């Protein structure tokens, strides 16, 4: 038996023994995910157990180095782990902006001290992170951000406002873009700062969305003092870190796009399609697109691990994945008819279908709009002339 075959056999056995039955079902939306944090809100004992068991092996971040709380797995082993998890329908043990966004950026740009301090707690789900990027006048034009960060000798002093900070009200720490030089060209005066949301001067307020939920917040900084060693990379070079991290965010959003369990939408809606040939045709067409996109996702991950992916490829995945996800929920609503429109009833599980449908509308806006992604593809992959 090769090493990889042994690894597969052992992994399969371990997962069979350690993955609780309840955790072998698809996640039912954002609120059903395990997010960890200083005061973790587990939905069940099984969810807690599953996260802890996986974290203990470093398998919440299987391909990070062992020194930083990871599993130290090779690309091939990581793929096997994912395949074996998929085989039994095991869900992701920990949903975390620390894992999908900050971690990769720290691995690349963090100091050794920062890696040792922050990465293991990310791997164990001990700190819940949020992202302070957008501002009221710096959305798609992110680099025009104004949050001011002054060097006060023994600390940084931060003043300003962020918007669209996902889960800022539940987060423990924030990774934040701040302006450290207001005279420099807009991309060159930005720095990347980490700080505790419990710091004096930080306040946050949820923004109610059309779905009736508020995953996003407005966040205000009023004379927030931040220790000097919590700045990542070089002063005024934060844009490099930000861009790198955005690539990972787009990757994550595109991956969330299809719910991940690979089920055919048509199969799920089968009984609602039998007397509606046009809807059936649209759903069949969607399934073609979704299965093709799933192949693309697999290819993208394989190419990433092999260092073959174009740096702008996450833009393509984000664009295609989120447009597809919107299309999926339009079809779910059409097939659901009146049932799907009940906003609060028990039958409709509190309007789950409708609220998720509305939530997907943000997919092609958050993390860079579809138009921004298309612009990046046109410029960096197709090399079309700039304006």
């Amino acid at each position, binding site marked *: 038996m090769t090493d990889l075959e042994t690894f597969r056999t052992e992994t399969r056995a371990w997962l069979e023994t350690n993955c609780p039955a309840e955790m072998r079902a698809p996640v039912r939306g954002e609120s059903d995910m395990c997010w960890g944090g200083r005061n973790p809100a587990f939905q069940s004992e099984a969810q807690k157990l599953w996260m802890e068991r996986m974290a203990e092996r470093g398998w919440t971040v299987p391909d990070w180095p062992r020194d930083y709380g990871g599993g130290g797995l090779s690309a091939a082993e990581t*793929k096997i782990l994912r395949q074996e998890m998929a085989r039994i329908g095991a869900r992701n043990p920990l949903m975390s902006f620390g894992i999908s966004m900050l971690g990769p950026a720290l691995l690349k740009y963090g100091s050794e001290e920062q890696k040792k301090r922050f990465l293991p707690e990310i791997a164990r789900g001990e700190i819940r992170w949020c992202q302070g990027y957008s501002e009221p006048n710096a959305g798609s034009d992110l680099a025009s951000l104004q949050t001011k960060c002054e060097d006060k000798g023994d600390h940084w002093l931060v003043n300003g406002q962020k918007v669209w900070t996902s889960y800022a009200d539940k987060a423990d720490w924030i990774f934040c873009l701040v302006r450290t030089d207001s005279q420099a060209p807009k991309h060159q005066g930005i720095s990347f700062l980490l700080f505790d949301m419990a710091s004096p001067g930080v306040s946050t307020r949820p923004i109610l969305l059309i779905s009736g939920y508020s995953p996003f917040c407005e966040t205000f900084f009023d004379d927030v003092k931040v220790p000097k060693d919590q700045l990542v990379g070089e002063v005024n070079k934060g844009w490099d870190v930000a861009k790198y991290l955005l690539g990972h965010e787009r990757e994550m959003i595109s991956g969330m796009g299809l719910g991940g369990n690979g089920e*055919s939408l*048509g*199969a799920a*809606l*089968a009984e609602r*399609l*039998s007397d509606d040939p046009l809807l*059936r*045709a649209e*759903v*069949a*067409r969607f*399934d*073609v*697109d979704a*299965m*093709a*996109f799933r*192949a*693309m996702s*697999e*290819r*993208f991950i*394989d*190419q990433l*691990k*092999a260092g*073959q992916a174009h740096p702008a490829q996450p833009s*393509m995945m984000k*664009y*295609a994945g989120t447009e597809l996800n919107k299309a999926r929920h339009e079809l779910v609503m059409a097939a659901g008819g009146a049932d799907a429109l009940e906003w609060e009833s028990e039958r409709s599980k509190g309007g789950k279908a409708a609220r998720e449908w509305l939530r997907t509308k943000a997919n092609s806006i958050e993390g860079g709009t579809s*138009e921004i*992604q*298309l*612009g990046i*593809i*046109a*410029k960096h*992959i*197709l*090399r*079309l*002339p*700039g*304006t």
Partner: protein
Amino acid sequence: MPLYLTDDQAMLRDTARSFMAGEGAIASQYRKFRDMNCKDGFGHALWRHFGEMGFTGILVDEADGGLGLGHVEAGIVLEEIGRNLTPSPFLITAVTVVEALRGTPLRERWLPGILAGETVGALAVDEGARHRPEAIAMQAERSGNGFALSGRKQFVVQGASADFFVVAAQAAEGLTLFAVEKGANGLDVEGVRLADASIGARLEFERVEVDADAVIGEVGQGEAILSRVLNAGRAGAASEMVGVASGAMDMTVDYLRQRKQFGKLIGEFQTLQHRAAHLYAELEIARAAALKAQQLLDEGGSEAEAMVSVANAKAGRVSTLAVQEGVQMHGGIGMTDEHDIGLYMKRDRVLNALFGDAYYHADRLARLKGY
């Protein structure tokens, strides 16, 4: 298996790419044979050259003198064929017909000629205007020590130049495949030029007598073989359509970088940039789907059947999008025969119809998934 090409496969791609760009290019092959009104629609010298390069043997077992490779490798060659609109019997003869002959005694009769690029085999399945292999009506009656075939076939690509046909017919025992030689008594072959200048044929079988050893596989067991043959063709056509789409897109993106209007390069206009970027995304997805389908076919994966339909439907839609955008963005020049972009549009349409179009395959996927 990772979903990208191995080093060996990338080498094959590079070889096929330079071969098709040189030998199989539009001016030297497609236009040349179209403009001389060639009855075959392709050049036999190039087909022999395919043989010398080993391309004809990709799906032929090593024991039979081939390379013993798989559908992934056939797809690699087909993508380059599509990119250059190379007219050749490769998809039909070296992919579907070879797939039909695999492991049967008939391979000794036909494979050496195919390997050498001397022989052309064609596939006679469809009987109506649209691809409906579920509805084969041609009759195969027991007669003497063999069968008598009666009925008609159409859209038999390269049928006019084929040395033999793989024919699907209904015997009393069920669907059966036969290898029928050109010139058989009672077989009438009428060549028809298609929109893309390739030649298809209509076949009339009037009690065409064949020996029992013309049966491919077992009598009544044709469905399984035909399904293998069609999967090979569908996955192959998906790759050729990805190639057609890539060729059209590259040509279009080049044009966007050069053509000036209103004092600007038209590639600076955001509307066109976004449409080109959307096309890029769709094309990458189609390419991934085709590769996935071929890997599953080579591994015998259980999802292969569904993925082949996904690949064909997706590649078909994307290829159509690519040629439509291509002609539109080229503007007036795109409508002229002198420019090559329109040739891509014609080839796309034929490839889309060949093994079932995007509607057929979306419907097939729905049935496979139980709705």
